[in-house]
């Protein structure tokens, strides 16, 4: 099954974030210690921001993180000596419970022209891996941002410079190829997901029976979908009207509801829109109603009342009220890397329709303190 919600993020963005926070976390990505018995100080540290490369290795769940590492030894009273090594961390991205995307280091490889440094780093691989893992594991992306939705399964795909994490209402979840990102991230919301939201948050909760001006109108069913970035619903209603012993069946044509999807702050919301005025007709269901119907004028008055008070009033208000909601909130992500607080704040959010799906794009600012 195709994914119903896809969050796509670019390696370029990850690298920009890495660049932004590096001055704050650099001291945390280094270690220094003295060896009193040898009158020696040994220090190592990452000297430039780690670079993400979303190459798509390992079946689309692996990516690499490269960074330069310097090791410095300083004898007491002597001059420091420094050797450098390139470090390539093979990392894996997985979606853990509740739709949280987490990164972890699988392996580290060191490349140094100094064979002694190479051997020492290989020997210290476990320690350095743990250190780098602290960095990457602090990056967490939450897919559970769609209100009221519990996905049945998740999928993740990394490659061609961007990553995509997805949730689906049914298993298995497959990620189609997504367009190259021109922004930091994009969220793709399928029509199925919107239909699910309408089902669970609108249809399951909206009143099905409306009584006003002597009419009992039933909300019998609906269809919903996305088109050109708007949410449409076709509502099917019917009802009865009784007055002074006369009974009518009310035939109501399809009510077409078109609602706008918009960005408000960091929220993707359903707002405004139009509710059509359906054709309404009365059909006498007993002899007295026939008598009134033949009279003509009263029927027109009843229809007008139904349209104005029931469909145009109560039902319309309920529909709008039920659907006047937030689809999802793009969260401000924050986490701590080795005691440094890193905050990712989304901005420049825009929503558009692509076929039968919604596409929310945006950029993000990353700060560290």
């Amino acid at each position: 099954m195709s994914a119903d919600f896809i969050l796509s993020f670019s390696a370029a963005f990850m690298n920009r974030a890495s660049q932004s926070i590096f001055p704050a976390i650099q001291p945390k990505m280094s270690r220094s210690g003295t060896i009193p018995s040898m009158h020696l100080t040994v220090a190592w540290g990452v000297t430039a921001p780690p670079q993400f490369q979303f190459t798509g290795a390992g079946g689309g769940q692996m990516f690499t993180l490269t960074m330069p590492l310097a090791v410095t030894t300083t004898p007491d009273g002597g001059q420091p000596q420094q050797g450098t090594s390139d470090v390539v961390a093979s990392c894996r991205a997985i979606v853990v419970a509740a739709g949280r995307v987490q990164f972890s280091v699988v392996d580290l490889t060191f490349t140094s022209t100094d064979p002694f440094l190479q051997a020492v780093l290989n020997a210290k691989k476990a320690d350095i891996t743990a250190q780098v893992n602290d960095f990457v594991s602090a990056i967490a992306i939450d897919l559970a941002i769609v209100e009221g939705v519990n996905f049945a399964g998740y999928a993740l795909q990394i490659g061609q410079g961007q990553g995509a994490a997805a949730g689906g209402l049914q298993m298995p979840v497959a990620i189609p190829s997504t367009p190259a990102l021109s922004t930091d991230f994009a969220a793709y919301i399928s029509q199925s997901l919107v239909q699910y939201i309408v089902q669970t948050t609108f249809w399951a909760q909206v009143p099905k029976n409306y009584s006003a001006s002597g009419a009992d109108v039933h909300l019998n069913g609906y269809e919903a979908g996305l088109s050109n970035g708007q949410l449409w619903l076709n509502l099917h209603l019917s009802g009865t009207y009784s007055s002074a012993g006369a009974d009518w069946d009310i035939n109501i044509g399809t009510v077409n509801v078109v609602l706008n999807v918009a960005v408000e702050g960091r929220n993707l919301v359903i707002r405004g829109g139009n509710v059509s005025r359906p054709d309404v007709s009365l059909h006498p269901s007993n002899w007295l109603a026939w008598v009134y119907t033949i009279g003509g004028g009263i029927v027109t008055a009843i229809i007008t009342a139904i349209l104005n008070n029931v469909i145009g009033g109560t039902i319309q208000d309920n529909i709008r009220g039920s659907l006047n909601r937030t689809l999802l909130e793009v969260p401000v992500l924050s986490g701590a890397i080795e005691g440094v607080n890193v905050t990712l704040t989304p901005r420049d959010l825009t929503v558009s329709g692509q076929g039968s799906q919604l596409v929310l794009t945006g950029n993000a600012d990353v700060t560290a303190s």
Partner: protein
Amino acid sequence: MTADDNPLIDMIENILLTPSSDFYIATILHDPNGGALDPRTIDSVDLGTISLEGVQIGIVIRNLVVRGLSNVQVAFDSEGNPEISVDGDSVTFHAVLPNQQAGYTRPPDVPAVAAAHGDLDVTIAGQPMPPGTILLTISAVQDLKGVFTATEGAGGLSTVEITFTALSVGLDLAAGVMKITVDLATVFKETINHILNQPDMQASFLEKVNAQISSPDVLASLSQVATKARAALGTN
């Protein structure tokens, strides 16, 4: 028995101090063919492993050629007496380097400063590193101690057997008399030098060298060279 009781011992004691004698201390310790202490080739000196931030670094020196340890003279105590003691037919001498005794001419192949060079094998966490070299210099020896016995056979002085039973080099490491310099393909060469020149490391190195030069094979070889010098006894 004292030297006074054994004229042979008394004789040996004297010629150890005499530069012109074939049994002069610097002479019996020197054999260009490698049979004595100078030069001496030590096949292997295993310095064991040191732990650097949890990384095990193994150091083994191979083909260590030591030169210059014959540039010694018998030490004198504060009262001007030679530090040679006799216990029965056992002679213990204490010598110092360099030899500044009048009448001694250092052979061309004996350097003024004791030095050793060899191949250096380093392993890091068991992984062999590209080989290097080690150069070691000893500017002064505070106590080169030797113990030997001299036994005279039935044939008189011409049958005297010299048998070394102990030999060791004592250094005042705190005075910085030893310097180790390695050459390895790493930018951390100076750090390795720094580590190897720590007093503990130098003491460990000296202990291993002493274990080698006091091995039965070396003592037997030195005994042979010294015994050949017994002719000096007849000229004393």
